[in-house]
């Protein structure tokens, strides 16, 4: 049974069940799986500069992560980037950011359900994507199962993420440490970089693909409204996620370029020529299971790894797909709460206290995307990957602008974490801290958006088409409900913020915020927190 607003009783809200490890796992579930899909693609495109491509994308990702850390700890509500842009830039831009992130999360569902079955096909060849119909049916079953799990409730699906995330971190640590210990040669790394440096176009292509390895920090923000003590926990989980993923991505890319394989005789091209490790992993036939192949080339350990790494990869893909279901529903929940989408998407199921309608609808969108991908045959995965990069770069660019705007417009919201390198400036008599790194971050994400347009022909058509379709839907919805289309609705952000901090259990931050906004004349001194909660 679903409820929008029960009469006489407060409507059901999302429950705070996500622990620090759960919060981290939500992010890891999304980002951690990316390297399994991206490693082969990036080494295939950027060759001897794969580590540089990962480093550039990783640098942008660090800036994105820091921006999300500041914003998610200051505004711990479901919605993430969409909510930050809404607060900073207004309703219509909030919609565009949210719609772009929705694209990413629905792609996440489809892409990782697809690659999960692809990884499993290493052990069960019947599931290979060349067997189109069985492959498609199994992908659909995965999406349906995850949808049901998320309808049942966050604690159940969060537990899945936590367990699998822990197993995968242990697995990747084993692969990286043993590969570094037994196969890595720095002289070979330097030699490979010198002799296989790519062209500029190839490098740009590599960078735009490498960003795929870092998409997903958004998930932590998505779960903010369900995280215990979000203002304190989220900065830690975000920074930890940034660091772990960066460590893994840079380690993989450097090890691949400087690795002496255990069985080099396996690495031959179609003409029987000997290949280096990175060349072998970059072959189209090997790109979708590069991590498993790398692990199989570690002395002794590789014998076991060849059997279980595809399985672990498949399970991680599963939870990445799961985080897509979760993230899409939370974004839609947030957008509906702020009248960017119909209120049906804000309905929380009474029994499970989850946004069940949002979960079902956007899982349905993922199925539609799957169908589009399936009809494209060999190019199906490329289609999903292009859209993934487009959605991420669009929303991240808007988030950086929103961060700058919020630093100016809303200096009182408690920021337990600030992006470093703030420059104190005075504008219209108001002194505020200008986030220099946000400008660099915007330049980075925007350049990746440009790279994606330059190098991905499908992405430059399908991505803008998605945004355009969304805008038409938005205009129709707002007009039908008598809401302003280009302007924003009136929001009482101050009272909302007080209630959010109260509900998050961040009482000390709430006290400080109330004192600051009252001193600034933004809140009546006679209004109590209880009254604000009741009014909200």
């Amino acid at each position: 049974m679903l409820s929008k607003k029960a009469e006489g009783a407060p409507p059901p809200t999302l429950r705070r069940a996500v622990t620090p490890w759960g919060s981290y796992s939500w992010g890891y579930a999304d980002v951690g799986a990316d390297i399994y899909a991206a490693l082969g693609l990036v080494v295939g495109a950027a060759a001897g500069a794969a580590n540089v491509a990962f480093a550039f994308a990783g640098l942008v990702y660090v800036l994105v992560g820091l921006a999300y850390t500041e914003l998610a700890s200051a505004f711990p509500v479901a919605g993430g980037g969409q909510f930050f842009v809404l607060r900073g830039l207004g309703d219509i831009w909030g919609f565009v950011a949210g719609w772009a992130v929705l694209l990413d999360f629905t792609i996440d569902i489809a892409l990782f359900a697809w690659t999960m079955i692809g990884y499993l096909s290493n052990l069960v060849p019947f599931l290979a994507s060349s067997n189109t119909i069985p492959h498609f049916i199994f992908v659909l079953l995965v999406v349906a199962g995850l949808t049901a799990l998320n309808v049942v409730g966050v604690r159940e699906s969060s537990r899945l993420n936590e367990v699998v995330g822990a197993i995968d971190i242990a697995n990747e640590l084993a692969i990286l440490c043993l590969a570094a210990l037994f196969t890595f040669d720095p002289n070979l790394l330097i030699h490979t970089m010198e002799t296989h440096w790519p062209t500029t176009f190839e490098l740009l292509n590599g960078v735009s693909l490498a960003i795929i390895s870092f998409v997903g920090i958004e998930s932590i923000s998505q779960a903010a409204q369900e995280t215990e003590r979000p203002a304190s926990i989220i900065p830690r989980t975000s920074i930890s996620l940034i660091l772990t993923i960066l460590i893994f991505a840079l380690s993989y890319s450097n090890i691949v370029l400087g690795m002496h394989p255990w069985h080099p005789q396996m690495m031959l091209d179609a003409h029987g020529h000997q290949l280096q490790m990175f060349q072998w992993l970059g072959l189209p036939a090997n790109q979708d299971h590069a991590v498993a192949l790398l692990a199989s080339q570690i002395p002794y350990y590789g014998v076991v790894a060849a059997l279980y790494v595809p399985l672990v990869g498949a399970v991680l893909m599963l939870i990445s797909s799961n985080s897509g279901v979760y993230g899409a529903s939370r974004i839609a929940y947030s957008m509906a709460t702020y009248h960017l989408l119909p209120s049906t998407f804000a309905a929380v199921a009474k029994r499970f206290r989850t946004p069940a309608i949002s979960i079902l609808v956007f899982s349905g969108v993922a199925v539609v995307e799957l169908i589009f991908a399936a009809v494209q045959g060999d190019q199906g995965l490329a289609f999903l990957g292009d859209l993934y990069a487009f959605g991420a770069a669009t929303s991240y660019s808007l988030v950086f602008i929103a961060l700058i705007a919020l630093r100016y417009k809303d200096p009182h919201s408690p920021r337990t974490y600030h992006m470093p390198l703030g420059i104190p400036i005075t504008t219209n008599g108001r002194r505020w801290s200008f986030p220099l790194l946000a400008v660099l971050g915007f330049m980075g994400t925007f350049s990746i958006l440009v790279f994606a347009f330059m190098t991905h022909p499908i992405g430059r058509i399908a991505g803008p088409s998605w945004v355009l379709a969304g805008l038409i839907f938005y205009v129709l919805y707002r007009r039908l409900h008598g809401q302003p289309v280009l302007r924003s609705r009136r929001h009482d952000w101050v009272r909302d913020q007080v209630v959010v901090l109260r509900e998050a259990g961040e009482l000390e931050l709430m006290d400080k915020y109330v004192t600051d906004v009252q001193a600034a004349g933004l809140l009546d001194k006679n209004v109590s927190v209880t009254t604000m909660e009741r009014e909200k």
Partner: protein
Amino acid sequence: MTLTLSIHPAGAVLAVAIFISTVTTLWWMLHPPKTKAEEAAEVIEERAEELVSTTVLVMSEDTSSEHMLPFALKAAVKQRASVLAVYVIEVPMQLPVNAAMGDQERRALEALAAAQAVAKKVGVEIRTETVKTRNTGQAIVAIARRERAHLLVLGTVRRAHFSGNPFSGLIEYVSAHAPCDVVVGVRPEGEATKMLESLKEGLG
């Protein structure tokens, strides 16, 4: 062709660096600073543990504390306290203080063995002691001081047709002089007896 196993120093350093940096990052994440509310809760929890760090269950000819055994054990489990079950035998003045008290000593053994058996079943460490004394009240207070007990548990019964105060002089004395909190459980006589019998049967 299979290569021989070799380790490059840079590879070893890289492996150690990957491991340490990842584990350190995760450890830092999982140890966030506590809020004031959490710190206060910890202090209260520690204080609560102190309050009942040793629970003394007192049994004697003049008390009927067996029915308080489950309470004492439950409190001990929750607070991770140790339990001392004491059976006090009051020796008449006409006998030496260490005189043999056959029947009473037998009852003491049965009661303490029953207490041990029950404690074992619920997984609580329990010590037992039989004390002979001239004055039961003084002996109980002395034991509480010696053990630095934070909780004394005694029981008594409402006798049939009894219309006045069920507390004996012993309980009043202990309540007045004990150096710690005293919990006294009062039950109808029949129920207390049934519980004691069932304890003995269970033991048998």
